[in-house]
């Protein structure tokens, strides 16, 4: 295999990983810090993508569309928190699972009623739609490079927010002992609403940047949500650093598995066997990765602060 292809595949893995990170970031925030299992996270991601598609269609300007969608999704997220989810903090994880699963069903149908069942058009902005040459002989999609950049910025921003600000400490305190945090003067309710809004905004960012690459359609949130969970579990729940490392690991392992496993197998086995086994093994790979990580580190790679 030529080295440039190898390099490109690794880059693909990094990029896919950061794509997952965008989604996992919001999840680990809401789940790791507020201790709330929110399956409807995927639905917010879908709403973000739909809103982006709609607003980009209306305004004709990608970035303006993204901005409007982020604001819109954050508002929807806060509305959800305010009306329904806040009643679930006190409850166990299982009630949260059921309630947010119910939300998935409801949101899917509402989106279907509003936008129809067929996928929606959302393309990368004109200026970023082509490839650019990052190394001599290595072209790479400008839009995917943008995703990498956005992913990194979000990672750093979140890391600072959670670990280096007072609000971050309040959030963690409130999640571990709500009553005591209140007794120390933390206005938990508005704070959690706000945090949920931030989580939803991150979903919208993910939706806006993944939409041009993936199909914008009903149900787009569910399949990728599982991957996002895999990411944060590998990394250690609640740890932004963990989510980033987990996302990169999943991205690279998955991509490398698809790219190199069949090749490797064809060296050692008959082409028939290789072509059968390769894809099956590649599909299993990330789950295997997760199982192995959890076997040796039952709390994930960066057992976070709970």
């Amino acid at each position: 295999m030529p080295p440039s292809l190898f390099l490109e595949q690794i880059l693909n893995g990094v990029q896919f990983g950061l794509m997952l990170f965008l989604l996992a970031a919001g999840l680990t925030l809401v789940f790791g810090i507020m201790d709330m299992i929110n399956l409807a996270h995927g639905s917010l991601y879908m709403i973000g993508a739909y809103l982006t598609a709609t607003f980009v269609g209306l305004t004709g300007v990608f970035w303006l569309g993204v901005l409007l969608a982020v604001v819109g999704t954050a508002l929807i997220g806060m509305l959800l928190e305010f009306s329904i989810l806040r009643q679930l903090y006190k409850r166990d994880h299982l009630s949260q699972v059921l309630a947010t699963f119910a939300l998935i069903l409801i949101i899917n149908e509402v989106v279907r009623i509003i936008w129809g069942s067929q996928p929606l058009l959302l393309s990368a902005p004109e200026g970023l739609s082509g490839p650019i040459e990052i190394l001599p002989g290595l072209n790479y999609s400008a839009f995917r490079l943008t995703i990498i950049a956005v992913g990194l910025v979000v990672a750093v921003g979140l890391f600072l927010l959670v670990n280096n600000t007072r609000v971050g400490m309040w959030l963690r305190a409130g999640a571990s002992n709500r009553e005591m945090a209140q007794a120390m003067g933390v206005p938990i309710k508005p704070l959690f609403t706000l945090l949920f809004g931030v989580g939803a905004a991150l979903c919208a960012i993910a939706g806006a940047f993944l939409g041009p690459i993936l199909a914008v359609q009903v149900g787009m949130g569910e399949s990728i949500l599982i991957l996002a969970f895999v990411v944060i579990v590998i990394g250690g729940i609640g740890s932004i650093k963990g989510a980033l490392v987990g996302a990169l690991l999943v991205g690279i392992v998955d991509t490398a598995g698809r790219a190199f496993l069949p090749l490797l197998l064809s060296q050692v086995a008959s082409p028939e066997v290789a072509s059968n086994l390769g894809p099956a093994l590649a599909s299993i790979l990330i789950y295997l990765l997760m199982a192995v990580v959890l076997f040796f580190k039952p709390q994930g790679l960066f057992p976070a602060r709970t």
Partner: protein
Amino acid sequence: MRYGPILLLLGLLLAFPPIASATGLEFYTGLLTKLMIFALAAGSLNLILGYGGMVSFGHAAYFGVGAYTAAILAREGVSSAWVIWPVALALSGLLAFLIGAVCLRTRGVYFIMITLAFAQMIYFLVVSFKQYGGEDGLRARRPDFGLFELSDTTLYYLTLAVLAAVLYGLYRLVNSRFGRVLQAIRENESRTAAIGYPVYRFQLVAFVIAGVLAGLAGVLMAHYTEYASPNLLAWQQSGHLMMMVILGGVGQFWGGVLGAATLLLVEEILQDLTLYWQLGVGLILLLVVLFAPRGLAGLLRRRAG
């Protein structure tokens, strides 16, 4: 447990098929069979999830392996249920043992996800066997019981008998010494260990029992649909089972049964009424979570008590 309502229900279920076929409602016999199969599967999940606090997100694996074992054995020419059943149960039990042995090292959400991981591996493994249908699934001829022929009606009665027996067994189990320890572990694991219980062993045994029962449900499912599909193994199926248990009432004895019956019936009825039936299901689930914190069984119990 109060036996009056239970015996009444049992009587109604026993009398149902002849009445249904006399009135041209055979369809509902099939529907009830399916409800009972899922009640069995959800009941088994409730044992570990509700009573043991082990939130397994991979329960479909045993369900599916039960069904696939039945289908594959049938495909390979084994027609006797007396072979198929034991093999299927043993396999799902063995699988539960292996998976449980690894997964029980983790806790909480990590446990949820690692059980999911194993179930996904099983899923991809099964669909990679092209000779057994891959993603298309596999037809499973109904087996030979020797004593009776497995028609839709006898399958109904067989399922009913199995469900009743399993539920009675589970009832004894959760009220036995073992059941009490299992619940104590859910309540406070470190203390249970500190007063001298081998926590891991108790959890593993419960995990295997639940796996075997789910495998049993899977075998019945294969007999019922005469088909083993990869969907039985998919994570959505695990999720569906979990929803049933939570809806019915986690750790409430009737939780699994009630949840399975309610969710499937609601889906069935709403699908008849509207194309946007998932909206209805979602709203109902949401209402239950918000207003019946201990699930439907908790609600009923509060009414009765």
